[in-house]
């Protein structure tokens, strides 16, 4: 028994849009199937969060933005985060990708780094093989809607044995609250390849409700190594709904670095499916809640492979009336002998009206494994403040040191300096309003 769901988009629109973009048949029909599913499926059931109370039906319309010739055509503040790199960049503005470059060297090596709409046409079979395979269209209403109306996005393909040394960078920028802003990122790293991907999801001047419903899928083939970093700082009017999922084969590794620095509500689910023996996953997540923000942040590692290893660390700082539900799920399936899964969730409360729950879950169906979890929710320790103040440090600086110190075990571990610096700047922006 489902209630009548009013979808944010209708069939004729989806059809017309797909046609106008000349999409391959498989993709057009997938969009329509998904739309039908969206009408039948419910929102995902989240721990202690009811999405029905969130404002998540304003998706906007597909609006095409003009391509830009150079980064100089972007607003100044968004140029800086990209400026140290001339090549291997991609920029999505509202619904579509407006700028992309890939170095000749990587092109020669067979690396594909383009918007997903183009990739679906030019590399149709390759995209079809992976698209919506890690996350399924019929998981819930959100994944179905995404499948139906996503636009822009990224396809990154790294051939066998290719090591990409420089991080590939993407900017997802929304400047129009009436435009669809739901990109899909698809990364395929073939055997023994390695790549580092960095994106920044941000907005400027949004005044009305909008949903950012994005999905990231990463396929890590045997022996491959993928580092995925993402920083989200969307405006308070935008609700961020993000699924990120990696499927990791034998001896492959995925590293997630995630900064949830939005001003609006955010549901994110970052999962690693450790399919292969010896596969590894490492997830580091930092979030800051301010004002009336509601966050539901889930990290998940599912172990199938023998001797697979996962580690996840989440740190959340909650201020004002914000609420965070931080979930960590380590699932070790039967047969995943010698698997190891560790997780830590810590929440620091800065205000008496903020709320934070840390929910560590270990679900283990195999005997020969090791697993551990630690979770804590607490306030700034008064003795620590006293101690720092007794050395002449002001109360404000003492609190600041303690808060940054709380985040440091994650922030200081970020391997890409540029991402660490940018995250640090976003943290300062959120904490020092």
């Amino acid at each position, binding site marked *: 028994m489902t209630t009548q769901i009013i979808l944010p988009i209708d069939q004729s629109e989806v059809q017309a849009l797909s046609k106008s973009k000349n999409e391959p048949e498989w993709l057009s029909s997938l969009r329509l199937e998904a739309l039908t599913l969206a009408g039948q499926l419910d929102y995902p059931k989240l721990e202690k969060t009811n999405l029905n109370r969130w404002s998540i039906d304003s998706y906007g319309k597909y609006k095409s933005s003009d391509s830009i010739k150079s980064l100089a055509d972007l607003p100044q503040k968004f140029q800086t985060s990209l400026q140290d790199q001339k090549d291997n960049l991609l920029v999505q503005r509202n619904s579509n990708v407006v700028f992309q470059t890939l170095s000749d060297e990587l092109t020669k090596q067979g690396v594909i780094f383009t918007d997903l709409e183009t990739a679906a046409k030019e590399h149709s079979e390759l995209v079809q093989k992976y698209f919506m395979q890690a996350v399924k269209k019929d998981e819930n209403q959100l994944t179905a809607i995404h499948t139906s109306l996503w636009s822009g996005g990224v396809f990154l393909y790294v051939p066998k044995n290719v090591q990409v040394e420089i991080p590939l960078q993407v900017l997802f920028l929304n400047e129009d609250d009436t435009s669809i802003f739901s990109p899909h990122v698809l990364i395929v790293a073939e055997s023994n390849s390695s790549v580092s991907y960095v994106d920044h999801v941000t907005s400027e001047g949004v005044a009305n409700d909008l949903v950012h419903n994005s999905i990231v899928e990463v396929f890590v083939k045997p022996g491959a190594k993928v580092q995925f970093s993402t920083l989200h700082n969307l405006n308070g009017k935008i609700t961020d709904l993000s699924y990120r999922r990696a499927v990791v084969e034998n001896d492959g590794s995925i590293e997630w670095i995630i900064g949830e620095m939005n001003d609006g509500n955010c549901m994110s689910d970052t999962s690693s499916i450790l399919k292969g023996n010896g596969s590894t996953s490492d997830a580091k997540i930092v979030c800051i809640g301010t004002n009336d923000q509601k966050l539901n942040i889930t990290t998940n590692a599912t172990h199938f492979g023998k001797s697979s290893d996962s580690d996840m660390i989440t740190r959340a700082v909650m201020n004002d009336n914000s609420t965070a539900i931080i979930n960590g799920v380590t699932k070790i399936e039967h047969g995943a002998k010698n698997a190891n899964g560790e997780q830590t969730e810590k929440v620091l409360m800065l205000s008496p009206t903020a709320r934070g729950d840390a929910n560590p879950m270990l679900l283990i169906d195999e005997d020969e494994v090791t697993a551990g979890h630690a979770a804590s929710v607490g306030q700034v320790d008064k*003795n620590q403040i*006293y101690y720092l103040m007794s050395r*002449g440090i002001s*109360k404000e600086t003492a609190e600041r040191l303690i808060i940054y*110190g709380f985040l*440091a075990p994650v922030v200081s571990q970020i391997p890409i300096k540029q991402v660490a610096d940018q995250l640090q700047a976003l943290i300062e922006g959120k904490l020092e309003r």
Partner: protein
Amino acid sequence: MSNSPKFVIDGLKATIENKEILKGINLEIKGGEVHAIMGPNGTGKSTLASAIMGHPKYEVTEGTATLNGVDLLEMEVDERARAGVFLAMQYPSEITGVTNADFLRSAINAKREEGDEISLIKFIRKMEGKMGELEMNPEFMHRYLNEGFSGGEKKRNEILQMAMLDPSVVILDEVDSGLDIDALKIVADGVNNMRSEERGFLIITHYQRLLDYITPDFVHVMMQGRIVKSGGPELAERLESEGYDWIKEELGIEDETVGQEEEEFKMPMNTVAPEFK
């Protein structure tokens, strides 16, 4: 210009949760002097240190504490520190994510005017030098503040902070607890090196052994929240050989304690047990 400080405690009374622990303390410490406060556990010694520094748990109900005529008790904790008071704590806090170096640099710069911050090079040289004197492993510079430090390492780190911050009144609260004899000597050397006309010391201890290495100018015995006897270094020696009972007899004191105050702070740490003779 004379930099010799004058630190005066006059009729200081303090309570914790409405229980009076300090019942009128009078003490005057001038630059160059080392005063030792001795006494059994639970007599109010650590409360005195905490009340001077301004720990939020203690409420001063009467009396004054002034440094060069300026009232400390009106100040916030950080202002007291910037005015020149330093308290080496019995149980220093551990702070994750803040390195020893970042912390100390913030503390030094807090005392300086904006635009006059210590240069990184100068700071590192100074810190390395002081750490060398205290025989601290250089890696402690970049370790998180006191996190995972042994009891002895924490105490050395307190002395390091003292040396870096150049205070004019130093209070050492049971700095000898948890130290083996080698560490005790290093800490004592650190203190002795800091002795000057520009600095006064108040050493709180209930063991005589620290005073074997730091010779005090004045020794005070605290019982029932008051200083009940004062004298020179010979008083400490007599306490070592005869204990406290003769003072209790002399003054007709049966129970020298004043409450649970020190018991409350008892927690397991890497303490070296006192030797049994």
